[in-house]
């Protein structure tokens, strides 16, 4: 990592929020590299134009003309290829492969204008849902079907609670319109699309409370479709799970 001074300049200038994901440091390095390159090219181009306007040169031989055009162009093309390759490596690591088999399964459902999170419970299977049963006011925002035995131990909440250091596999749903699931501290964003099942996986590393935002215009309450991600140490997470396990009559 760069010196504390460089880190301070980075924080003050670019104002990235805290990053608390395993893939975050590599992501931040790549983003900051891009930003610094863009800033340097911006300065360079403006200085060139200013000098060019002030200086007076009568004639450029044709061979130099080709050099002037193609050498910087080739350099820029190489630079873009370099950035694209680095970005592609990160993209592949994040998206080309599925989650670890031991990853924690959580289902995320977006609806106007709230997020709900469902844990499959001890049977490790999400119970069936029925659209006719959706009733947020009755405590059944996802329309859990009580006749399905797998539903009984499903835990549904409006806060995403995750253990630090364990990979999580999010299954994104939307009930009504497209929503955007975004956690800036996890350097993560993925739309939830009605009719589609979209998986995304990542590993939170630093315990704390982080913002979850909706980042796809979803209607008049879009601005207040926020939620909280609570990352807990592994032990505390297990305690939280036990404490919040649904009481399903004879089950406990």
């Amino acid at each position, binding site marked *: 990592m760069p010196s504390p001074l460089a880190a301070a300049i980075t924080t003050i200038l670019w104002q990235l929020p805290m990053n608390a994901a395993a893939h975050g440091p590599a992501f931040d390095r790549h983003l900051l590299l891009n930003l610094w390159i863009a800033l340097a090219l*911006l300065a360079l181009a403006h200085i060139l134009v200013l000098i060019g306007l002030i*200086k007076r040169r*009568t*004639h450029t031989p044709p061979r130099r003309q080709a050099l002037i055009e193609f050498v910087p162009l080739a350099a820029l093309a190489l630079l873009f290829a370099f950035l694209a390759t680095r970005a592609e490596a990160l993209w592949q690591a994040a998206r080309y492969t599925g989650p670890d088999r031991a990853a924690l399964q959580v289902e995320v459902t977006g609806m106007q204008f709230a997020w709900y999170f469902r844990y499959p419970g001890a049977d490790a299977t999400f119970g069936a849902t029925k659209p006719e049963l959706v009733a947020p006011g009755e405590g059944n925002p996802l329309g859990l079907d009580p006749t399905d035995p797998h539903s009984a131990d499903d835990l549904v909440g409006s806060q995403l609670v995750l253990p630090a250091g364990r990979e999580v596999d999010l299954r994104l749903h939307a009930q009504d319109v497209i929503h955007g699931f975004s956690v800036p501290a996890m350097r993560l964003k993925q739309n939830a699309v009605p009719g589609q099942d979209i998986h995304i996986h990542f590993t939170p590393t630093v315990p704390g409370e982080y913002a979850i935002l909706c980042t796809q215009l979803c209607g008049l309450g879009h601005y207040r479709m926020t939620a909280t991600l609570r990352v807990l140490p592994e032990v505390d997470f297990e305690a939280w799970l036990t404490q919040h396990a649904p009481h399903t009559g004879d089950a406990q």
Partner: protein
Amino acid sequence: MSEPQNPGGASFRASAKGWGMAHHRTLGLAYLGLSTAALLAGVTLSLLMRLHLTWPDWPLPLHGPILPEEYLGAVTLHGTLMLFFVLTVAPLWGFGSLILPAQIGSRRMAFPTLNAAAFWTLVASLLILCASPFVAGGTAISGWTAYPPLSAVAATGPGQALGMDLWLASIGLFSLATCMAAVNMVTTIVCLRCDGMAWHRLPLTVWGWFTAALLSLPSFAVLLAALVLLFCDRHLGTGFFLPATLVVNGIVTHSPADGSPLLWLHLFWFFGHPEVYIAILPGMGLVSMVLANFARRRVFAYRLMIAVMVLIGGIGILVWGHHMFVAGLSPFAGSAFAISTMAIAIPASAEVLSWIATVCGSGVIAGKARLTTPMLFALGFVSLFITGGLTGPILAQPILDQYLHNTFFVVAHFHLIMAMAGVFGLYLATYYWFPLIAGRMLNERLGKIHFWLTIFFAYSTFLPMHITGLAGEPRHYAQFTGIAGPAGELLAATMPLQRHITLSAIFLALAQVPFMINLWRTLRSPATSAPNPWDATTMEWAPNAFSDEPSGPELNTHAGPCEYSLDGETFHPQWQPVTQPNQPE
């Protein structure tokens, strides 16, 4: 040069014979008038949005507090007005009708009636859009991109019933008008060039118009088809964009076909991305010509620039997926669209390098390059294009877009490269061609004040948006305060910069006052302009290019554009036979 006075103003006003068969220059002015009205409305809406974001409790006089759905209605109208009615209509159809025929040595356009029909369709389209805030439920709130199911199901929000239907009707008519105007423009350029105006002698401005008009045909045709499909989903029970089951506000709806909202995203962005090139290509062409004009240079790598412009248009059709990196496509599609999007940065860089090389060594201090107001706006365009363009390759990387998508970073990117650069292109065209259009020069002193204030406040408004975007601030939020939890803290942290941005935006609007004063004062003064005040070389400045006498002298092209001698002392206008080069005045 027998005529002492520019024939601009009077002659074509007299030649406009009724609106049905209007003269192309009358239509050009009419397009510009329509755009100006849309621009004023769009700017007002943006200021209201900024004021509301900064002071959410502030009641709008004669209205009361701005509600979230009203904020989103303003977002939708602002985007629709600016993208369609300002940045598409003014550079392409406005200045295209006004200047293009003269620039290719033609006295008419290919299909005047079609052009007039396009204009009147646009008027209807704008009126329908302007009516939408006044119907029950108000105007549509789904943004200019109108993603379904929000745009397909009336129950998803106020404005999504009749307001959305009016939006669909308006943009449907707009697409039709654009196809008509594009057919007219492409045919004019292909068929009506005067003798000697070979393809390689066309000014880059014409290449910009040509590429943009060509692009607008497939893109607006696809948009029109998508609008029709969306209309069917709304009213005829189809399900192109709707999955089998939706639960909206507790109401379960079933769609007969298991469609997908992603189909709309594909169709919309297949139109939407070329659309932003349609908006900026004419300005890019004009900038090349004006830089060469005032640097008294040839356009650097002129033929390459023709190829580059066509290439930008061509690749521009293949990059739409970069709007959909986090939309739910296969990650492999993300990689493919990242490559095509990075590829377009190369011709765009070639364009910028040509601009820099054209002015490089032109010598303002030595008095050779002339820092006139049009030149300043051309340089401003270059500056904004570079600043906005440099964030393009950043957003082209899917992994970075997974953080930056739909944040203010994106808002900053496209406002600099498309909106601000586009508007600078329009001011450039206005200052540069005003002597032709009105027979008068706009005041240089006021013009320069206008330029410096505008570029300063444009940067002051849009540069900080990069920072708020990096801080995680999303677009389309009706307010950033009064929200609980860590999300509320993240949003509220950007408020100091929000205030700065809002104040800058107000000053940016006020910076247009010198321009209005300039326009008003100049139009009241007597016509005085010399026939070719900028020592320009392109055909529209030929002494008889704007004359409408059918028996007038034939226009012929004898040279390429921007043929300045190597020392910049003499130049060769395109209309002059090759024997003797012209002396500057």
